[in-house]
């Protein structure tokens, strides 16, 4: 039998992960950038900043069965630059990196059905979830 986590443990783990986005006085953010992710999640930003979306504060509701669902994410209604979305970085309001992932079109952790970003345009993200496995 494989190693397993109890539901309560999963919930606590999941809450700890997502609550870390709320560190600082304000709401966490998701920055959409060009190019590949930095080599390590703690490395400095790479690529060009295309736009920044803002989490609600708190960003996520309480986890249930190891899954936390984000509250509404405020779109960026005036993208900063033009380019192809390559990766995203999540930070708290003190600009501490929380996590990152890939962007793609029909692929990636953040899947844009059109990953071309145009300066002055709008960038939106659907409701998202974070899962801690059994």
């Amino acid at each position, binding site marked *: 039998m494989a190693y397993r986590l109890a539901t309560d443990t999963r919930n606590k783990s999941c809450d700890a992960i997502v609550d870390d986005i709320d560190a600082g006085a304000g709401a966490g953010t998701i920055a959409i950038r060009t190019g590949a992710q930095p080599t390590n999640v703690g490395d400095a930003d790479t690529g060009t900043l295309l736009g920044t979306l803002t989490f609600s504060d708190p960003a996520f509701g309480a986890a249930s069965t190891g899954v936390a669902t984000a509250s509404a994410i405020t779109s960026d209604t005036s993208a900063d630059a*033009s*380019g*192809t979305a390559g990766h995203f970085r999540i930070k708290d309001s003190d600009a501490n990196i929380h996590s990152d992932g890939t962007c793609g079109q029909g692929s990636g952790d953040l*899947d*844009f059905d*059109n990953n071309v970003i145009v300066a002055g345009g709008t*960038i*939106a993200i*659907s*409701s998202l979830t974070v899962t801690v496995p059994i």
Partner: protein
Amino acid sequence: MSTSSSDDKVKELRELQRKQRKALEQTNRELASLQPPPKPGMKTWVGGSFAPPLDTDKLTRYRELADAAVSSQVREVLHKLCDMVEKFWETPSSSLSGVAHPSGRGLVVKLEDDEIKRIWDYVPYDKENKMYAELFDTIDAKTDKELRDAAFHLLWFAVELEKDREPLTNDML
């Protein structure tokens, strides 16, 4: 062989290519649905990009920028995409019903089949759009910002039209 007979054969070939492309896309969708679920902790999120609207004044300016571009490749592709937009503007808006955009913002309206056929020769394939993205990424974001913005604006329209749908600009949200 008469010219009209040749034209008919070309049209038949293009229609066959279009049907083959659609069949391939459907197969890929079916295969994707068979993929294993994402790794725990890493859930696929869905994003949407909605460009500003495009009008004749902007398109005129984009052609001016294309003419002034140092790179002949950029110049050629930009004019090609401007031609695509102008051709698209000749067609009436789709009368089909819309479905929710995957990002949760706005409605996606598919183009009607006749419209797709009318603009078929002007709309790049997906792999061409990817090549254009790499080309446009060579345009300096600081020294040639206006050209870069124009290029990606046109490319955004190309991606939308390649998906056989009405471009959903941010003023339509």
